[in-house]
């Protein structure tokens, strides 16, 4: 169990360093940085103090602390799937617009 904790914390540390790097290089916005920063900080805290989730479980009326994590994780995964589907759809439309404009412009220049 201790080995798992060490490995997971290392993983979280790497992600936090990469997040910081992306913020420095202005690849992500500050709001996105903060959301992910606290998310991974929370994940790290839960791994170090797993019993802390029991308090949340009692507060929400869910059986065990680990169940709260599973429910929240599932909700988060579904949200991100939805979010990325919508983003992809928007990007698809933008690409189509660019390709169409090139096509119309090319013909205009030819004529």
């Amino acid at each position, binding site marked *: 169990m201790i080995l798992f904790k060490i490995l997971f914390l290392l993983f979280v540390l790497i992600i936090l360093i990469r997040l910081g790097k992306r913020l420095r290089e202005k690849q992500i916005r500050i709001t996105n940085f903060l959301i992910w920063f606290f998310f991974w900080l929370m994940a790290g805290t839960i791994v170090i103090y797993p019993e802390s989730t029991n308090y949340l479980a009692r507060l929400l009326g869910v059986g065990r602390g680990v169940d709260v994590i599973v429910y929240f994780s599932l909700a988060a995964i579904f949200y991100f799937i939805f979010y990325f589907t919508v983003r992809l759809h928007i990007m698809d439309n933008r690409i189509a617009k660019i*390709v169409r404009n090139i096509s119309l412009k090319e013909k205009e220049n030819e004529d």
Partner: protein
Amino acid sequence: MNIIVVIPAYNEEKVIGDIVRDAVKESSLVIVVDDGSTDKTGEIAQKAGAKIYRHTINLGLGATLATGLMAARRYNPEIVVTMDADGQHRAQDIPLLIKPLRDLRADFVVGSRFLGKSFKKRDESVPAIRWFYNSFANLLIYVLFRIKTTDSQSGLRALNAKALEKINIQSREMEVSSEFFKEVKNNHLRLKEVSIKGIYTKYSLSKPDSSKTQNLSTGIKTFFNLFLHKFIK
């Protein structure tokens, strides 16, 4: 009368020449939108007498039709006809198709392969599975947009200048056929259907939008895209 035929095409070098030559006889101008074909579709269509608009990458039927309609607007047409590039439609049907527009009885006309034909009385060449897919799609159009149609998936359509100005296609793929109905409804356009004969050859059945290849996953994807378009701009 200034009639423009718009043909979206992707890898149709085997048949596009004949399609364009037939369409030229029935119109003032034929526009072929080459959707990033990797064969000689564009070249052959141009030699046959069409104006070519080319997508640098393959976008899909919806995006190609949208480009075609935008291109057509440049020539101030009185009527625009869209037809498939795989030989499913006959250019000889164009005069019949545009008659309701000429008579000012409609703004948007669909060439229907199923108008007045039950499952048993359908054209011999229409595969049974295609009939069922189409019936389901028609039902969906009614549920989503409250429009009754007998052939919601037809690629043979005619638009007058008003419809051309109002209709704004957002779809990228196959769901474009359904989106036309959404636009008709939202823009209060008058819809008419005209009976046409669908031609199902070995070649047209091998194309991605044919009944042979149009499977359940295509249907689900189309439905999902349609759903997305309903809620996301």
